[in-house]
């Protein structure tokens, strides 16, 4: 009995938390607009809870920014215009996908550079080893071959 009551209580709590977390409903024209809004806010970072997107965050600032994004969509602004509006206030920080410019060159191409450096190092080492073993086998014929390792 008590366990059933407890289960009920847990279910109620979960239901209540779902209600609390239901993010401010916005009056979308149609489903396509809602999808566009969700796709856009997923690409934007909440400035308060920085590991959450604007779509997920419960921070009051995120709610305000969602409302602004929605209003700008209603005003016919494109996704790029809305992003520019946000970065003018909050810098590239607000974008999860950093744009390519002078300050982000290392961010974008750094990993490729490291990969390239590693590849060059491997090629150099392998070639040198090949040359050394070739030289070794040439100078010491057949008999000693088994003692190499």
């Amino acid at each position, binding site marked *: 009995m008590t366990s059933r009551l407890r289960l009920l209580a847990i279910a109620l709590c979960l239901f209540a938390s779902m209600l609390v977390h239901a993010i401010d409903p916005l009056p979308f024209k149609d489903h396509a607009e809602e999808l566009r809004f969700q796709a856009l806010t997923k690409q934007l970072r909440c*400035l*308060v809870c*920085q590991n959450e997107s604007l779509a997920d965050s419960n921070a*009051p*600032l995120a709610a*305000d*920014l969602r409302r*602004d994004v929605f209003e700008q969509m209603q005003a016919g602004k494109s996704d790029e215009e809305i992003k520019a509006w946000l*970065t*003018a*206030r*909050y*810098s590239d*920080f*607000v974008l999860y996908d950093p744009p390519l410019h002078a300050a982000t060159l290392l961010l974008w191409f750094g990993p490729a550079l490291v990969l390239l450096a590693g590849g060059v*190092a491997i090629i150099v*080492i392998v070639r*040198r080893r090949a040359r050394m073993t070739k030289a070794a086998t040439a100078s010491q014929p057949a008999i000693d071959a088994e003692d190499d390792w």
Partner: protein
Amino acid sequence: MSSRLLPFFGFVLVFALLGFGIYWSQRHDPREVPSPLIGKPAPQFSLPVLGDPSKQVGTKELAGQPYLLNVFASWCFACRDEHPILMQDGKRLGVRLVGFNYKDEPDDAKRWIAQYGDPYDVIVADLPGNVAIDFGVTGAPETFLVDAKGVIRYKYISPITPEVIATELLPRISLLKKEAAQ
């Protein structure tokens, strides 16, 4: 020879990289959002005065003299740490101190000011938080230094301390004074 030293060089390289990472993260808060507004004109605004909503104060009224815009709210815990510092040093800054009451119920804000004191020359109230978004405010407390021409010269995130006043604010304020004198 060189192939034997190669792992050592690799180690030194990784060590230097990680060391630089530690050095960098100690001096920079990775959570701090850089403001793209520094060096740009402060966004135009006109907001009701706290306690006297019939009166509006904004960029137009504040122009002509530098001012320090301090974002605060009664719900902001860190503002309570900052407040005594402003009470103590606010008048000695040499610029007007404008309170920016951010997303706060006017009654809560008035009670908070009555309880802890009023260091501000004027307090504007942004209940919906729209002007704050134009300023790129991410929370409270934040402080903006705006020059006589209305250009944002400096932004400080998190509570102001006596050290911040001495090392960050006062040198910049005296620079603004020097510019004004020329």
